């Protein structure tokens, strides 16, 4: 299944939900957040949120920055 993750086209092998996608991509940032098709998804819903072909996924975290 093809997804756009952080603006990059990716072939995903086995994930059916956001929760599985985090494991497949091996995301280990201490604090991160996700949006699916421009909707922010609460952490509690990752395992129950299905992903489909051509979905747009954003995975973000905190970085150094100021003004």
């Amino acid at each position, binding site marked *: 299944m093809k997804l756009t993750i*952080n603006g990059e086209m990716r072939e995903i092998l086995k994930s059916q939900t956001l929760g599985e996608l985090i494991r497949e991509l091996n995301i280990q940032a201490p604090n991160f957040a996700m949006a699916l098709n421009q909707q*922010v*998804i609460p952490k509690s819903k990752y395992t129950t949120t299905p992903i489909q072909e051509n979905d747009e996924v954003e*995975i973000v975290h905190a970085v150094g920055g100021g003004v």
Partner: protein
Amino acid sequence: MNKNNEFMKIGDKTFKSRLIVGTGKYKSFDETRQAIEISGAEMVTVAVRRIELDKNKDSILNHLDPQKYTFLPNTAGCYTQKEAVMTCELAREAGLGNIVKVEVIGDEKTLFPDNEATLEASKALIKEGFHVLPYCTDDVVLCKKLEDIGCTAVMPLAAPIGSGLGIRNPYNIKLILEAVKIPVIIDAGVGTASDASRAMELGVSGILMNTAIAGAKDPLKMALAMKMAVECGRMAYESGRIPKKLYASASSPLDGLVEL
């Protein structure tokens, strides 16, 4: 005399330090951590960006104790209301809290804010339960509007971001201080310690800075200089300075003067 400065109140939190610092532009996470520690800041701002896939890079959050610091996620780099709102929602979901610095840039060269988009983004975020601290120009009418819609504080710029020009228009900052009841925090433009002191002497609640510390030749020493400058400026403000006069006013008594 009360030697201790009053606390800074933002939303439902109080801070002993009136200095808020950014976490960008440092050479390493270690230098970031040390500079922040020396600055005495209790609130630190962070940006929200895409994770680089396939790279398990270290994170700034591994170096800053969340028990010690209140995070202030910012929307730096956002050019639209939609981007700014979504960035704040993502930041809250990432566990960075619900006090946010809203920044909607309107011009790439000056990094001046798009004030209309900032107002709209702030409105939307307040509805969603955020404590909103908007970065804005030093415009009294705008700051009143931002207060009216329910912003927690206003953050007028002193000078363009990263310019180090200091407070370009102290009179505008004075007018804003008279016009609004919410905290006024100077955001951006500070270059050196005297700029920070001057801002605090005007009576602002706090100052946010990043480049002035991170870009100094010795960031750790500058972090200490800024800590002291903010404290000194605040103390002078609370002390109440003497009025400015055109002519001299002797401080020695005229009685008992030796007369020849």
